[in-house]
């Protein structure tokens, strides 16, 4: 009679003991092997300070280090940690940042890295010499000066305190180059590769592949785990899926679509693992404030009230790259809007019948009770633009608007937005780190990307204040005011749905964590293969 009771007890004890034991051997990083991954694009040039595409970051980031980096294991992609900086201090007035530079870091040519190299690289980013571009210079307007008082210290002085400074210094674009080379030829890095990263450059065969091999002198002893990596350039998405399915490639770091994910999971079963995250890319709707009736905020509000974002999320996430209903920041990140707050914004409430009744009332009040016709311009890219455009038109028709979609070829789209040649148009943005200072400047009145041409000094002031608010709680409060003004009170733009990043990869790829940005976490020093 006693034995049946004993059996489950023994099993439970055995399970508890098993769970208390160290992780199985395969969870410990294993050295060796070559990581093969697909890159849907290719670097046009080699200088990250001057380029704008993930096609450069994915194959080339493993060759370089940055002053700070985003913690490779932080799923929000918002936690800065030291890369070349061993530690740092911030003065009480928050105007001076002093970084202690690691000793023993070597460039791939064998020379030692010092703070002089860090300063030269930041000089190039902040004040590029004539004929050299710096695409993200504008993100560092708070910096008054940079200095390297000795080989081990790099000092940044600010004009005013800036909440985002540390995270901004973890930018994946700010590769540290060798000062002597930059002094001789500031264009050298446009066509050559030489950094301090975990992998050395081997070859780039144009249109085909990029190869890197382990840097045995990497400063973080024991890393990298991989012997090398091979990035294969494949632009066709079906061929990318086939490459993973046929195990010719192990991962594609940008994203696959949900149907592509499903086909891989079905074909490869336990051999595939899937990581997903809200993506720091969003499609917005720009409404031209100088064209009637979109100069009337009641009309703009009616347009956002018509959208059933929650139902749209459910339907569209099955077929394209969008999913989360979000405000001005990616859900799950430090300054994201809490769901309870989000629901208070126009067009974010769950009672869609009530929202649409309110939209119709506003249209009537604005003098267009029977609705009106307009053309919605969309970018000629299948995903997610096409399904999102169709969804928007359907939503607007439900409040009596007659909308025609005009698809504009992708390369002609941005000039069209800049010319203001639209009534309502799809807008878009992708960030490299989720941070209000990086994501929101486009909404300031004098921004080059303020395509709807709104003029709002309140927005400008709130943007400026949030950036200088060094207390996170105070900053959150200002951001919520900014969001309410932008999306609810004035409805200068509309957010549709947040993109959703889906990275299926062979299960043997370990040590890589998805973040909301496809520009982050590509240095590959933590990645290893379990078999």
């Amino acid at each position: 009679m006693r034995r049946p009771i004993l059996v489950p007890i023994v099993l439970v004890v055995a399970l508890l003991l098993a769970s208390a034991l160290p992780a199985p051997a395969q969870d410990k990083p294993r050295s060796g092997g070559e990581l093969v991954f697909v890159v849907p694009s290719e670097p046009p040039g080699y200088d990250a300070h001057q380029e704008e595409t993930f096609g450069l970051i994915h194959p080339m980031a493993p060759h370089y280090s940055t002053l700070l980096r985003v913690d490779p294991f932080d799923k929000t992609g918002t936690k800065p940690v030291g890369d070349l900086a061993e530690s740092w201090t911030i003065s009480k007035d928050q105007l001076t940042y002093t970084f202690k530079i690691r000793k023993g870091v070597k460039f791939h040519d064998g020379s030692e890295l010092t703070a002089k190299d860090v300063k030269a690289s930041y000089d190039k980013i902040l004040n590029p010499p004539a004929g050299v571009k710096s695409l993200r210079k504008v993100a560092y307007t708070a910096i008054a000066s940079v200095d390297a008082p000795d080989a081990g210290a790099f000092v940044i002085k600010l004009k005013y305190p800036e909440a985002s400074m540390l995270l901004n210094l973890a930018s994946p674009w700010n590769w540290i180059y060798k000062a002597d080379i930059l002094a001789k030829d500031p264009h050298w890095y446009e066509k050559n590769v030489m950094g301090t990263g975990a992998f050395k450059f081997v070859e780039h065969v144009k249109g085909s592949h990029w190869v890197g091999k382990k840097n045995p002198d990497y400063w973080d002893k024991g890393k990298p785990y991989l012997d090398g990596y091979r990035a294969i350039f494949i632009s066709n998405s079906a061929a990318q899926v086939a490459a993973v399915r046929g195990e010719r490639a192990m991962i594609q770091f940008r994203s696959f679509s949900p149907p592509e994910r499903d086909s891989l999971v079905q074909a490869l079963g336990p051999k595939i693992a899937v990581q997903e995250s809200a993506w720091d890319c969003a499609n917005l709707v720009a409404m031209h404030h100088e064209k009637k009736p979109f100069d009337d905020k009641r009309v703009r509000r009616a347009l956002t009230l018509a959208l059933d974002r929650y139902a749209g999320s459910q339907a569209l996430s099955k077929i394209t790259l969008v999913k989360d209903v979000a405000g001005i920041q990616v859900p799950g990140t430090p300054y994201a809007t809490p769901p309870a707050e989000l629901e208070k914004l126009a067009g974010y409430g769950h009672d869609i019948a009530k929202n649409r009744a309110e939209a119709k009332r506003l249209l009537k009040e604005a003098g267009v009770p029977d609705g009106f016709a307009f053309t919605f311009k969309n970018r000629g890219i299948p995903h997610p633009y096409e399904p999102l455009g169709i969804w928007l038109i359907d939503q607007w028709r439900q409040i009596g608007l007659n909308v025609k979609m005009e698809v504009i070829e992708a390369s002609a789209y941005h000039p069209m937005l800049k010319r203001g040649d639209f009534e309502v148009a799809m807008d878009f943005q992708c960030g490299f780190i989720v941070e209000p200072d990086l994501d929101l400047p486009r909404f300031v009145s004098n921004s080059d990307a303020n395509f709807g041409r709104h003029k709002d000094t309140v927005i400008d002031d709130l943007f400026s204040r949030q950036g200088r608010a060094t207390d996170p709680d105070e900053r959150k409060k200002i951001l919520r005011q900014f969001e309410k003004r932008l999306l609810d009170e004035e409805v200068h733009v509309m957010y549709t749905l947040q993109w959703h990043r889906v990275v299926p990869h062979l299960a043997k790829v370990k040590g890589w964590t998805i973040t909301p940005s496809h520009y982050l976490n590509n240095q590959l020093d933590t990645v290893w293969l379990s078999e």
Partner: protein
Amino acid sequence: MHKYLVKRFLLMLPTLFGVALVTFLLIRVIPGDVVELRYAGDRGAVAQEILDQERARIGLDKPVWHQFLAWITGVARLDFGTSMWTGAPIWDEIKLRFTLSLQLAVMATLVAVALAIPLGVLAALKQDTWIDYAVRIFSIAGLSMPSFWLGIVMILVMLVAFKWLPPMVYTPFWVNPVQNLAQLIWPALAVGYRYSAVATRMTRSAMLEVLREDYIRTARAKGLMQKLILSRHALKNAMLPVLTVVALEFAFLIGGLVVTEQVFNLNGIGLLFVQAVAHRDYTLLQALVMLVAGAFIIVNFLMDIAYAWLDPRIKYR
């Protein structure tokens, strides 16, 4: 003959100039430019100052006639300039891709000829028998199926049935022939089959026509062996239209396998064409069009010479 050939050769120059002019103007009609695409991509918010600076650097701020003059004088010196997208010399962009496309074109042509000539001759000799019908069905199937579709089916079969995929990266034949053929044999078969379908039908109809000629009847009356009649008298004369089809198709394959190259992820001229258009890389696109136009013109020229060799009745003046 020599005079004619020199004249034909010299005529290539105005043809190429015409191609250059039309290409140069047409691609500038397409909206958008390389600078917009490169710097205003995903994030969509690049300062106008940077865009203007970059346009000035690559010469897009100059009047169109100035740009054409600068480019065409370079072409006259065989200097096609640098890619507007990558900044690399055009020849560096093209040479690896050209090697692959040329090899694929040769392999597909070999597959096509190896299938088309025996099948076409057989169908003509066995006209209206089951063999003829089988060959006709085989060739009509080839004409009906686009090579990229056949390629997709081949890849799916390899993936699903054999859990295998051809290598994704091109290895030159002289480096590793096995790896090279493992990658290129599949697209060569897909393209070669469609290509053979056209040539098979052409061979069949040309053979049928020749076999009804008086001189074949005379050869038969003289008691000449069937094998000799076919190889020495019929086939050689039937080859003129077949040669035209094969040669033109060969020239097309150099730059025309746009979709097939994407399906098999081949780093060839067709894929480079697509990228050049997508990036609005004017200089690269102009060079590629000139390359393909040059291939067509040279193939045509060689065909004219081959005609004279195949049919001595043809005299050029």
